[in-house]
């Protein structure tokens, strides 16, 4: 997931760190040192992640748009200038803009806010922002929570004792809570020096930027993989399952023949190895066969592997994760109930791959697939009545359709307790009978009066004639003789 590094470049960051040694450091230097460490780590382990750098004081500026080029980020770090006061609200507005412009509002994003714990004074300070939280007009809302899922990491180039002398810590905690609570505040331990800033960023790296290594298994074949971006644990339902589900490092792989949609990525780590690797074999065969493989990450958490080509030349093995659950794609059915085709009496894919057992049909059709009757709008009822009359005039050719429509109307009217309608339609059919032209087939008159009679009987509520599952059958007539 992309990262925005938000760097405080207010004057307070230039405060010197009191040190016995000869060299004099500013807090800014320490922050830059820590970020350098983070960028180096990412360049080595998170090559495929995008990172951007925003600097802020009372204003904010996007120094480096999202990039995978960590040199550019380093360079921008070394050219930071000093500005006026800290204004976190405007910086967060900036982050919100930058992220949404680049990734939209559904892509989860990590925000690393680097500051010194002096959170501004007066208007524009964090304290002021939080105090006025509830008195905002709609267009000046506090930017948190962001519209996109966020993990916020606040890196304070200050130790906790220092922060506790003011209300800075409380304010930062409130900020974290507003962002959705997912994240952490890091402070420096002991003296402010290069070592302690390294330790602090080390903790951040362990927390949020540890590479995700996994083993992909397919029976006895296996391969070590690294997954970008890192699959995050999911809290499925805080009511029934209060624990976040932790991703298993063991992934199991089962092949299947369905094809759907992409989301995340696996990339083999960079080793120039010439020894065969299962991932490459799997990728090659998936690509050639046009298949996807089902992959299991944990209990009831599945995904799929497939070959994804960005350009014509490059393709890679991608993993898309499904929503955790036993039945992530309804048209596959429950994953636990997918069995090997060897158990089936005959190959469900056909001997020549001409058919497929998928998609699985739901046991009950949806309303739009089953010709339901809805008379909430008068037009619905009118259409149904007219349909019957239209067919009535074309008897006996349309006998089948006539009775089909008639029975549909009858069923609905019975269910809705709309007996007046049954009687009304009975009358209509009777009238149609009298209006039949002389040329009409004699059967038409028989069928119409038969249908009208049946509807009347049903409208009287006699259980013998008003049963829901019973249909009005066409009158048996024989004009051949």
């Amino acid at each position: 997931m992309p990262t925005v590094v938000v760097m405080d470049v207010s004057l307070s960051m230039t405060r010197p760190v009191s040190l016995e040694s000869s060299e004099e450091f500013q807090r800014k230097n320490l922050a830059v040192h820590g970020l350098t460490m983070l960028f180096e780590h990412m360049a080595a382990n998170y090559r495929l992640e995008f990172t951007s750098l925003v600097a802020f004081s009372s204003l904010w500026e996007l120094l480096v748009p999202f990039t995978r080029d960590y040199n550019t980020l380093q360079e921008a770090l070394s050219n930071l200038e000093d500005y006026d006061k800290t204004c976190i609200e405007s910086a967060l507005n900036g982050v919100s803009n930058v992220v949404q412009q680049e990734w939209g509002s559904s892509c989860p994003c990590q925000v690393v806010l680097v500051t010194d714990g002096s959170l501004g004074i007066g208007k524009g300070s964090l304290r002021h922002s939080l105090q006025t939280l509830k008195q905002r007009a709609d267009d000046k809302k506090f930017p948190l929570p962001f519209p996109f899922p966020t993990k916020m990491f606040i890196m304070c180039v200050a130790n906790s004792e220092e922060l506790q002398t003011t209300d800075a810590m409380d304010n930062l905690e409130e900020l974290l809570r507003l962002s959705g609570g997912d994240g952490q505040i890091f402070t420096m331990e002991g003296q402010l020096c290069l070592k302690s800033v390294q330790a602090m960023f080390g903790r951040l790296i362990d927390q949020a930027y540890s590479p995700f290594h996994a083993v992909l298994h397919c029976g006895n074949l296996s391969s070590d993989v690294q997954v970008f971006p890192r699959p995050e644990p999911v809290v499925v339902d805080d009511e029934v399952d209060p624990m976040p589900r932790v991703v298993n490092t063991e992934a199991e792989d089962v092949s299947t023949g369905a094809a759907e949609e992409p989301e995340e990525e696996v990339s083999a780590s960079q080793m120039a190895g010439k020894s065969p690797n299962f991932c490459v074999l799997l990728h090659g065969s998936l690509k050639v066969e046009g298949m996807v493989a089902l992959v299991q990450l944990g209990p009831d958490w599945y995904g799929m592997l497939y070959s994804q080509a960005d350009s014509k030349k490059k393709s890679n093995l991608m993993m898309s994760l499904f929503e955790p659950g036993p039945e992530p794609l309804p048209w596959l059915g429950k994953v636990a109930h997918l069995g090997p085709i060897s158990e089936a009496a005959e190959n469900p894919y056909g001997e020549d791959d001409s058919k497929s057992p998928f998609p699985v049909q739901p046991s009950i059709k949806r309303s739009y697939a089953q010709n339901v009757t809805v008379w909430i709008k008068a037009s619905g009822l009118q259409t149904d009545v007219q349909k019957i009359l239209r067919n009535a005039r074309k008897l006996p050719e349309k006998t089948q359709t006539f009775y089909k429509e008639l029975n549909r109307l009858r069923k609905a009217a019975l269910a809705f307790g709309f007996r007046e309608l049954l009687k009304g339609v009975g009358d209509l059919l009777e009238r149609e009978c009298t209006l039949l032209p002389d040329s009409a087939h004699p059967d038409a008159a028989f069928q119409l009066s038969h249908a009208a009679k049946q509807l009347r009987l049903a409208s009287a509520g006699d259980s013998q004639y008003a049963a829901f599952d019973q249909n009005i059958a066409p009158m048996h007539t024989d004009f051949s003789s």
Partner: protein
Amino acid sequence: MKMFSVAHKTAFVVDHCPYMAESSRQQVECDVLTKSRAQGVIPLAPVSKSLWTCAVECSMEYCRILYDVYPLNKLINYIVSDSEFHILNTWRQEDQSTHELMSALAAVGPPNPREDPECCSVLHGLVAAVESLCKLTELQHEQRTVLMDTAERVANRGRIICLTNAKSDTHVRMLEDCIQETLMDQNKLAAGSDRLMAIQQCELVLVHIFPMGEDALVSDRPKKEISPLLTSEVHSVRAGRHLATKLNILVQQHFDLASTTITNIPMKVRQRLCGPQPVQLGFWMICFIEPPMGNVGVTEVQDNSGLKETVTLKWCTPRTNSVELHYCTGAYRISPTDVNSRPSSCLTNFLLNGRSVLLEQPRKSGSKVISHMLSSHGGEIFLHVLNSTRSTLEDPPSISEGCGGRVTDYRITDFGEFMRENRLTPVAETAPNPGGRFPADRAKAQLERYTRYWPMIISQTTIFNMQAVVPLANLIVKEALSEEDVLTCQKTVYNLVDMERKNDPLPISTVGSRGKGPKRDEQYRIMWNELETLVKTHAAGSERHQRVLDCIVACRSKPPEEEERKKRGRKREDREERPDKNGTKEPEDRAWQDSERLKGALEKEEQESEVIKDSPDSPEPLNKKPRLAIEEVQPSEKAKGPVSLLALWTNRITVANSRKHQEFAGRTSSVNNKAELYQHLKDDNGWVKVTC
């Protein structure tokens, strides 16, 4: 939405008392006369629905939308109340369909206006609803069973939607009090029962329905807390379309549904759908614009009617290329707002027939971007959310840059075949599970068996390049062998013995091996070793598997005394340090050493292909060819670079050809297309070189 929020259980209580038989006074003209027939025909008097009919059809519409969008685990219990209560269905999943409900409603029929109003009340139904909410649903039961010790985590909440005609506000209060009382009683009862659950939260939604043209005797009241267990809200609505609109709003609020309108349906489709007028289609679906975590400061946009603002999506001309995979971040079930209107049914049929429609979302800035796709899977229509912004997955590295990316002779086709054999198919949940294992576990067990010995590259295997081994290789991975299978395997083995006796060539990869590769008998030893390795991994499976292994061990040409000799020879060799490289040693012995190492390597499932192709002490040809010639054939090997395309192709062709015909014995053991003839002569005094 939590698994067991109030939305999990909804009890509909519909009043079936005599006054519900009253007309709604909203008239429907169902006899629309066409002009040509208008003369002299007296049109039928308009019909009007009763309050009961209005209540039933609107509640059915509520259920229809709910079942379309949430076919599972959002359950409805339908109760009708007059002088007693009638429960029309249960919480069970199979009872959750509008058809079931309609059938049960037909059996109940309209209210009887002649019944004694004194003994009829909606109260019977409300009490029954509370009792019913205490009953476990299948999901609650299942989760309680799963959680065991923490079963109390499973919550029991529910909603009661009561459609009635109340007398007054006092009457409403009386109903509320009564529900509150029943709740307390039932919870006490449930505390002492395993089969009932106490209700933690109950939401009463009381809808007072009155005929058109009458004054509402009951006033609207927003949700208020009656007790920590019970909240109640009152809606006073006219029968007819007002009621329909109200229930539409309610279903949207209760299940957090979003509404979407599709506009700009192109002329061609539009005419097919409904004629030349502009079309807007509405759809209900699960709210997919999820509020961010924390849910602070997010207010839902609502228009005056209380409906959430509808998201407008514009139709894009559907692309014919449906093979294209879109980045899709979510799929949501939909339900058409006006299901059997002509435009709706045309569009849904269009989608059910396998077509898909791309939709674009107009942005504030005026720019447009394709954001959604409507398409069906297995008779269900889903609105797919497509990623419309930059993807964090752009420009992924090629797999060839990673581990094993430069290996070129993967058994891609074989693995494709393997995948096809291991494809999955849905198994009915009612089907028996032998050994209590789920079908997916059996599929994994099959994968395990199939991969016990599965070399990944062509040059690592001999047997999988041989047509003659196929019957055995296909059978041995089976969990159970029949007597006939064992016979087939044995036949395969005899066939191989026969091949060896006839000295048939084997498709042993020569790619990467310097010189002319192993001798014929050596090749067979490699082949037998590999076959033994394959079968050994399955031998423990059953007695029949073991018999196949026994057959191989018995048949392979490896007289025990010879093996002993070889072993002794090797030990001696090891003691002698490394003999000089000039090939003074007996070549056969040397080759044996190699084959032993190969066998060991295979058994360890060692994947290092170099064992075969790059071993520095693989047998050098005794007769040194001119250096130049060798380098011409395998320059890439010398350079340790990747295998050249030519070499790859040649190898491929060789392998393919070798399967088709019996290879000329000389060619398989040839070096640089030159084969030694009369090799046995060289032991005596000389040799003849022939170019073929």
